[in-house]
């Protein structure tokens, strides 16, 4: 059990509790929900075995689901995001960078990190709300919810990342 495992476990517990006890109760204008636990998947380092990323993300999604009474919703979306994250990261790493590069503002640079996390977060919000509604009948509402939650979660995530940078 390496130190990395315990650090991941720590983030898992903190993000799960923060989401379930505090953030799940925030429904801004009845459409936006901050989804901070996506930060967990975004910050997996380059080169981490993909099956580990998948299992961790699925577990966090499942934990949040169990508390929110929505089995399968967050776990499905998180698994999809975990499948996509390594491939997207390859597009954003600077040339000649280390094989086990950590993902943060200091390693990727502000601009690249913002775009990288924004793409992942947007994909997550779209998939999450699509699964939640389970139909595209009212697509304007789907887009509004996804967009508003994205904005709120993105702001929160940038705040946390800028604190970590220091």
């Amino acid at each position: 059990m390496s130190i990395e495992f315990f650090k991941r476990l720590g983030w898992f517990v903190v993000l799960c509790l923060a989401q379930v006890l505090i953030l799940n109760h925030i429904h801004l204008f009845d459409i936006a929900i901050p989804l901070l636990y996506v930060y967990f998947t975004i910050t997996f380092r380059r080169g981490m075995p993909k099956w580990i990323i998948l299992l961790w993300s699925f577990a966090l999604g499942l934990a949040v689901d169990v508390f929110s009474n929505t089995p399968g919703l967050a776990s499905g979306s998180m698994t999809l995001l975990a499948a996509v994250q390594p491939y997207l990261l390859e597009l954003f790493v600077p040339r000649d960078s280390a094989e086990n590069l950590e993902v943060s503002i200091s390693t990727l640079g502000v601009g690249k990190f913002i775009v990288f996390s924004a793409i992942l977060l947007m994909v997550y919000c779209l998939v999450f709300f699509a699964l939640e509604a389970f139909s595209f009948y009212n697509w304007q509402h789907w887009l509004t919810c996804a967009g508003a939650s994205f904005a709120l979660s993105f702001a929160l995530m940038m705040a946390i990342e800028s604190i970590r940078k220091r």
Partner: protein
Amino acid sequence: MSNLLDFLRKYHHWLLFVFLEVVSAVLLFKYNSYQGSAWLSSANVAVGKMYEVESGVTSFFSMTRANEELTLRNFYLERQVDQLRRLYSEVTHDTTVIERQTLQFLNQYKLIPAKVVANTVHKPNNLMTIDKGAADGVEVNMGVACGNGIVGVVYLVSEHYSVVIPALNATMSRISCSIRNSNYFGYLHWSGGDPAIAYLEDVPRHARFKKGEWVVTSGYSSIFPSGVLVGQIEKVFNSADGLSYKLQLRLSTDFSCLRDVCVISDRRVAEQAKLLEAARDSMALTNRNR
């Protein structure tokens, strides 16, 4: 064969991805089934325990408000007991009897607890529905009160529900109230607008009172016992014809968040009502014969 194994080894994470997505989909689709949802839902023991701890913490923060309401209620009840004790000792000249017979006074009032199931506060004529009816002993013209004061009068009764005319009804609610510790009485009238403000009309001009004094039910109607809180005097106006006072009261009952009420059934009401009825009939008869 070895090509297949090589392929699997290279892309094994995709198999895991498909497997996990299938698990998520199964969970999602089985959500409505009893077994699936009960297992994974918040009935789960660990989750339940954590929510219990969290609600213990959050309910602690609303203790102060619950405490304030209980203290006020306590204060009012102590005053009422004090008043009853003095009254009884005046009548019987025996101050020790009350200790033996404390509960007998309140025995004549039977309280039926009920919950409000429908309520409005912003119409000019509001009506309220409670979840007790004829099967529970509720009858028309019984008074309804709550922990903070009066609520209204029962208007219609069915087997399991009743409709109550609350004090916030401009055309039909006229409850007889008096200023506490004096015998001056008037009628409570609500004229729409703020659900916390009502007016006590026909208070004689020689009545003495102060702002902030409590107004309670007078006991002159057969509907409410005397001493049930109505509100506090806020402002004093002259009545329209200048012959009496019109007091603006802040109602002690919060009609907009009412949930627990009790219906007061006074066993002597039937006798009192019949007597009044008989008196009116006999007067009408005398007038006709004149």
